[in-house]
């Protein structure tokens, strides 16, 4: 076979779709514009922000350092506290929700027990209950027990993740063969040891996915902490920045210096999850499809 024959054979196999790639390029620009805007404008001083320079390009002076300094010292450095709170809510709530979902999904998938079908139907129904509709009732309920305005008011509702249970159920059902569990039983292993040593390692992709989804939804949560917390030292970063933003918008003239730290604060607050997603791509890219393949 000649070289030219090879080339003509290969060409139709790997078309490059220039037009589609250009379209993708435009889409990427659209999806990245907000990030670009905060990166650029996080570097500006108040004067640079309102000085009439280009909104999509850097001002003459790059002010990252002094803006950073201001961001982390404003109101006694409460911003760092908010970041830590967000991380704490996301990890405690996310890990807790994942542990519960993994165990329950396994129980539903691998055991026959009285009331199983009925409880699973209720679980599926509950996926359709909007979580925000629960916020106000939960707040009133918590206030009866005096736990509003504590970290538990944010963490406890986060533990509820019916969709996570559903995902774990589907994955466990397909990925863990019953024969393997029976073989382990014949070998005399206890039920919990089987779960821990046989099933769990096989569930890793689904566990990472459910964990990531739980952590993200609790890191991004706004309505729940906004309703539950009144002490601003307990705020997660979303509620904190929302608060600053309200203050800065309310007093147009006095708020100008606040805007530069709000912008930089927005930028800093998205960095942890962006890094998490970029570094964990291997896991979530496959895992996110669990609920939709059958």
């Amino acid at each position, binding site marked *: 076979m000649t070289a030219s024959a090879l080339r003509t054979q290969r060409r139709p196999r790997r078309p490059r779709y220039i037009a589609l790639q250009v379209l993708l390029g435009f889409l990427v620009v659209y999806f990245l514009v907000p990030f670009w805007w905060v990166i650029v404008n996080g570097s500006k001083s108040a004067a640079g922000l309102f000085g009439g320079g280009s909104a999509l390009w850097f001002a003459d002076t790059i002010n990252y350092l002094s803006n950073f300094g201001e961001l982390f010292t404003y109101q006694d450095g409460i911003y760092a506290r908010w970041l830590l709170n967000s991380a704490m809510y996301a990890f405690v709530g996310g890990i807790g929700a994942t542990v519960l979902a993994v165990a329950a999904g396994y129980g539903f998938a691998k055991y*026959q*027990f*009285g009331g199983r079908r009925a409880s699973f139907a209720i679980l599926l129904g509950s996926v359709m209950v909007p979580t925000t509709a629960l916020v106000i*009732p939960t707040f*009133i309920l918590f206030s009866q027990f005096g736990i509003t305005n504590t970290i538990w008011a944010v963490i406890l509702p986060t*533990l509820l993740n019916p969709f996570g249970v559903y995902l774990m159920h589907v994955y466990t059902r397909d990925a863990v063969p019953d024969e393997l569990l029976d073989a382990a039983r014949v070998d005399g292993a206890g039920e919990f040891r089987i779960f821990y040593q046989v099933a769990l390692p096989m569930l890793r992709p689904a566990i990472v996915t459910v964990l990531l989804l739980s952590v993200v939804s609790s890191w991004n949560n706004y309505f729940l902490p906004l309703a539950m917390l009144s002490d601003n030292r307990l705020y997660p970063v*979303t509620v904190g920045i929302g608060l600053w933003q309200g203050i800065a918008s309310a007093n147009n003239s006095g708020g100008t210096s606040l805007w530069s730290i709000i912008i930089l604060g927005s930028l800093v607050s998205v960095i942890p999850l962006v890094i998490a*997603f970029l570094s964990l791509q291997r896991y979530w890219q496959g895992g996110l499809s669990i*609920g*939709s393949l059958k």
Partner: protein
Amino acid sequence: MTTQLARPIVDRHTSARRAARRRSITGWSFVAPFAIVFIAMLVAPLLYALYLSLFQTKMIGGTQFVLLGNYFKAFTDPSFLDGIWFVARFSLVLIPLQMAVSLGVALILDLVTTKFARFSRLMIFLPYAIPAVIGALMWGFLYSKSFGPLAELFGVFGLAGPDFLSRDLIFFGLLNIVTWQWAGYYMIILFAALQGVDPTLYEAARIDGANQWQIVWRIKIPLIAPALVLILVFALIGTLQFFNEPQILRYLAAGSISADFTPNMYAYQQAFALANYNYGSAISFALGAVVFVFVYLFMFITRKRGSFLS
């Protein structure tokens, strides 16, 4: 004679039953921790909200049992009804738009496999990692007259920039934010579903003379229907409980977004600004019921093609 014969059978029966019961207890003990959270964080608040919603607290006369009084009030309250009307309209425009964008991009990415395409996939997904609050704020900045680029960009063509924070355009401003935030996530779900399709089907179709469009319409889209139904349900649940974005933009878009803009915002205002817990609970419960019924009906209609409930 009978006893001697029967005994081993009974024994086997009881031991099998005992094993089944043990299995049953083990099964429940895996589910129990979640079940407790489920009852405490979902069932209890819902029942409590239902209970509270049956009362009214008045300045004079204290708390009174009014049965469905709050619900009659809610479903004749222009604030609540306007909110429902807004989210219904918003869903009707948003969901088809979001589906079209995410499906279109997923199909492109399924076809184009260059390095740049892989990079685009990641970048288009990225907004999912951004809190809705921050996403709304970033777009709020971009829309803003004081520091957004719109005036500058449109100025090049001698035009005045559109003000997406104004009363007339806030609908589109919000539409853009939510599409930006979620299209990438939905795209990844659809993309993963497309990757799960057996490629020999495409070969077979090509041999039968099908072109790329026919493959897309007749093979790819029908085969990922379950994933499409799933994201539709997600989008529907998410949009009907709209809260974060309009709540954040309220300040930046002074005057365009009222405190009762969406049902959830109205419930929040009733409960926290006016301390009207009974009415706030009624609105929350009514909203939850509306969403549940909507989504359930939808699932029922698409049941045959979807996989979620079947």
